[in-house]
């Protein structure tokens, strides 16, 4: 039997999906495929198009390649548009005159951007946003422009605005409707989105109808609006919606909808035998589906019909979740509450800029839709509840109210989902599919993605997929693997136990007895830290050298240009004028950029390798010690001035801060440690956002633990109250050593506590009540550590052998010729790439 010829017109995302599905089909052998594209390349990911502006290449966006098509016998013709269609003799003709007959014809011609018929819209810098070629044109135009306008405030328009903003242009969005994303968002959501986008520096103009584009006065063009106002711009991007690309079908007698689109039935058949239409060019039930997921479903349905199956396309959910200009936006189902009798709950937080509206049925039992702006965490839950027609919980408002702590966040939990629940809409993956994949041995996200393709499309379902995976793993009794890296099948905690119990003193000893390979930049510093925590050798002993990050080897913080910063210890933030003068003199002599840190110290930037020992010699001679700012170790103990000067202070916070900083300085730990001591409850030292916080009371000290500032702030927990000095030190000794023993690599105390089984109460039992009987052991380990303290810089500058490393070249006294600086606000800083190219006035 000869093969049936399938001609696919258009090789976009949906056209390719059709081909891919047909190739995967058991009857694939019965078909010969040929596909045409008017674009110069095979299918690529149009959904991720804007990533092209943040560094993705055409190759990154590609969904397939010529090799795959060649290997599977797919004929493809690029740069050649199909221009003629003969449905009585079953053939197509291309622009180049090529004629191909078909048994089955699949039209996947997609859509084209709608450009409003405005006089002057055809000028050189008036562009659209759909193909990679369009992006290249936008790039070229942006490089000659200062101001850019996007016409259209919908989803694609805002993507395009992001592109212009990324290109460094003053960016405007002009929208005809009264609000942004009018299709997906209600008024409240649209208003907040506008506010957030304007905060990002994008100018939004709504209710503007452009009447003409003429020559500008301050820019290349001027757009005149119907209300008499105008806007000057150098380039214009039209993104005012899409229109189905139905030209071919229109010319050759296929049934077309009133407002365009090739009419198809539930099998994606057109009104002509053996001709199918799928994706954005197809009109089903009077609707065009402008998202990729429904297009993929149509591709599947068409393959099914061609191979004798009976799958049907029955419409698609158009809910979306995405990030526009960095703003999270989601729209579910009936977002406008158009269903008769629909009621709604609204949560509008103008301070945190979060808007959520939940639309429910007349009887208040079902989710009909939702709008989420600024916080879209509820998307997965709400979408599943709607799609699976699940009953709302007793208090539906809880689904959109913020989690104010205490209670578990309100959610339905993946266990409540039926197995038929669709988790990934791009690839139509259900909860049951994921469960089956787990049962077949997939135990991590990478495996799930490979097996089911879930969350490999838009990625919006990644969190939900992970939840299903984790829940299923737990149900099957899997233990979640916590190996530190490929070289050791142990967690950091287990490695710490091995090192302590077996008294292992070097990395090689540990690798030989418990690991494999050579180690890596993950396990080496972690083991180096554990070794230092327990045995506290000089970190630059030869056998430990290879374990250390560059910061630890050269005892400074590497900056972006390869130079280092220098932070001497200023315990408690107390410094004499003489010492301050020394710092100033050293900074001046070596022309170091100088800045005061958040930890009440002075940071000196821009020291080259060979300068480090010279600078530190001067500092050590003047009585400074290293501040360990480079290490995963105790950093600073911040203090307020306390009772010695302050009218309100009830205890000597500076004195106590200096005590504990001297006690724990240099202590290596899984991550950096920051402390603070406040002299009264006014808390000027901000102790409650520190790993260890101490606040003076009338009756002694209150101890707080496991707070954090920075990336993920957490208030510290009150651990014990009204302590005397010795008891407080005892608790802190035990606390720190217990953390060092049990935490994961790079796990701050805050996260460690949150993951500690039994939580704060358990920690109190271990530290205060000594439930595990470890107290004395932990204190002894700390005492040994303190006893072995040495200032690494003092040791280093006293050893000529160690100093040999502090030279850029082993065989030359030259220095790195790549360094270049400019002066800003009377100090130097590294030159940017542009400044180097333009070679503006560089200084040494």
């Amino acid at each position, binding site marked *: 039997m000869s093969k049936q010829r399938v001609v696919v017109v258009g090789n976009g995302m949906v056209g390719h999906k059709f081909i891919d599905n047909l190739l995967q089909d058991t009857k694939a052998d019965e078909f010969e495929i040929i596909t045409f594209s008017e674009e110069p390349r095979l299918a690529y990911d149009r959904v991720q198009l804007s990533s092209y502006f943040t560094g993705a290449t055409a190759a990154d966006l590609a969904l397939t390649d010529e090799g795959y098509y060649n290997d599977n016998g797919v004929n493809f013709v690029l740069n050649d548009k199909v221009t003629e269609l003969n449905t009585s003799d079953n053939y197509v003709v291309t622009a180049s005159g090529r004629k191909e007959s078909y048994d089955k014809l699949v039209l996947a011609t997609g859509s084209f951007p709608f450009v409003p018929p405005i006089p002057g819209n055809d000028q050189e810098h008036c562009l659209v946003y759909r193909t990679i070629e369009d992006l290249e044109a936008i790039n070229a135009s942006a490089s000659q422009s200062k101001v850019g306008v996007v016409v259209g405030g919908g989803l694609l328009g805002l993507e395009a605005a992001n592109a212009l903003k990324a290109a460094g242009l003053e960016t405007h969005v002009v929208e005809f409707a009264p609000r942004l994303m009018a299709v997906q968002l209600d008024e409240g959501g649209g208003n907040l989105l506008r506010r957030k986008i304007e905060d990002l520096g994008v100018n939004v103009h709504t209710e503007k109808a452009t009447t003409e584009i003429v020559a500008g006065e301050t820019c290349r063009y001027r757009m005149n609006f119907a209300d008499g106002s105008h806007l000057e711009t150098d380039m214009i991007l039209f993104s005012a919606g899409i229109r189905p690309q139905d030209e071919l079908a229109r010319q050759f007698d296929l049934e077309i909808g009133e407002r365009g689109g090739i009419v198809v039935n539930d099998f994606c058949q057109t009104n002509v035998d053996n001709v199918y239409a799928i994706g954005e060019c197809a009109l089903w039930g009077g609707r065009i589906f402008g998202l990729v997921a429904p297009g993929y479903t149509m591709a599947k349905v068409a393959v099914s019909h061609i191979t004798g199956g009976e799958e049907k396309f029955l419409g698609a959910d158009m809910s979306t979740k995405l990030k526009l200009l960095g703003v999270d936006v989601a729209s579910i189902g009936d977002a406008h509450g158009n269903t008769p009798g629909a009621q709604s709950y609204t949560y509008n937080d103008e301070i945190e800029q979060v808007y959520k509206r939940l639309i429910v049925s007349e009887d208040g039992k079902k989710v009909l839709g939702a709008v989420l702006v600024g916080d879209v965490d509820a998307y997965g839950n709400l979408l599943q509840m709607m799609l699976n027609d699940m009953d709302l919980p007793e208090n539906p408002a809880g689904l959109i109210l913020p989690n104010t702590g205490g209670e578990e966040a309100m959610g339905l939990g993946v266990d409540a989902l039926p197995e038929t629940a669709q988790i990934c809409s791009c690839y139509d993956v259900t909860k049951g599919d994921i469960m089956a994949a787990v049962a077949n041995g997939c135990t991590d996200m990478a495996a799930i993605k490979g097996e089911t393709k879930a969350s490999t499309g838009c990625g919006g379902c990644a969190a939900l997929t992970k939840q299903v995976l984790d829940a299923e793993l737990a149900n099957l009794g899997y233990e979640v693997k916590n190996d530190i890296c490929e070289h050791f099948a142990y967690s950091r905690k287990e490695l710490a136990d091995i090192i302590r119990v077996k008294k292992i003193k070097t990395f090689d000893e540990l690798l030989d007895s418990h690991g494999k*390979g*050579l180690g*890596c930049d993950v396990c*080496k510093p972690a083991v180096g830290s554990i070794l230092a925590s327990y045995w506290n050798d000089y970190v630059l002993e030869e056998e430990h050298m*290879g374990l250390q990050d560059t910061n630890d080897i050269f005892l400074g913080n590497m900056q972006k240009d390869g130079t280092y910063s220098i932070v001497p210890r200023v315990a408690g933030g107390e410094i004499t004028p003489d010492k301050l003068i020394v710092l100033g003199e050293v900074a001046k002599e070596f022309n170091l950029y100088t800045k005061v840190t958040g930890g009440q110290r002075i940071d000196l930037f821009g020291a080259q390798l060979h300068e480090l020992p010279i600078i530190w010699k001067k500092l050590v001679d003047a009585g400074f010690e290293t501040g360990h700012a480079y290490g995963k170790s105790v950093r600073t103990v911040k203090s307020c001035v306390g009772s010695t000067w302050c009218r309100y202070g009830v205890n000597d916070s500076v004195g106590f801060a200096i005590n504990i900083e001297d006690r724990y300085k240099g202590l290596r730990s899984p991550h950096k440690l920051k402390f603070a001591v406040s002299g009264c409850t006014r808390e000027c030292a901000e102790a409650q956002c520190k790993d260890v916080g101490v606040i003076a009371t009338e009756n002694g000290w209150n101890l707080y633990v496991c707070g954090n500032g920075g990336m993920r702030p957490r208030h510290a927990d009150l651990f014990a109250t009204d302590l005397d000095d010795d008891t407080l030190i005892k608790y802190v000794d035990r606390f720190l050593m217990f953390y060092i023993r049990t935490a994961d690599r790079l796990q701050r105390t805050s996260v460690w506590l949150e993951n500690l089984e039994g939580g704060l109460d358990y920690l109190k039992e271990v530290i205060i009540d000594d439930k595990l009987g470890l107290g004395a052991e932990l204190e002894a380990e700390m005492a040994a550590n303190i006893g072995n303290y040495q200032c690494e810089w003092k040791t280093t500058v006293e050893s000529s052998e160690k100093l040999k490393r502090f030279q850029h070249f*082993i065989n030359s006294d030259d220095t790195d010729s790549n360094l270049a600086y400019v002066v800003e606000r009377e100090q130097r800083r590294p030159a940017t790439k542009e400044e180097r190219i333009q070679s503006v006035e560089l200084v040494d």
Partner: protein
Amino acid sequence: MSNWITVCSENDLTPSTGICALHEGEQVAIFFCGKNKEVYAVSNFDPIGEANVLSRGIMGSIGEDVVVASPLYKQHFNLKTGECLEEPEHTLKTYPIRLEGGEVQLQAA
């Protein structure tokens, strides 16, 4: 016949760490593996962080490949081929290197 140029002594090498040598006007990062006693030489310039820092990275292995991790942004470079594991569009120049009579030698161009 190829010429070998001595850049330093074997004693200057610390196992499992790197050093930087100036070789015919170029910065070369040299690594010595304590386990297999092999030496490796690649360009010292990190093409991603755009600074001369690779000799100061941590040496290790990923699978069978002996690698160095950039101290700036932690990408791994294969010390034999120069290829970047995370961003394969970047490849470091590699240099022929040998240990000869207690000396570390690079080949003249």
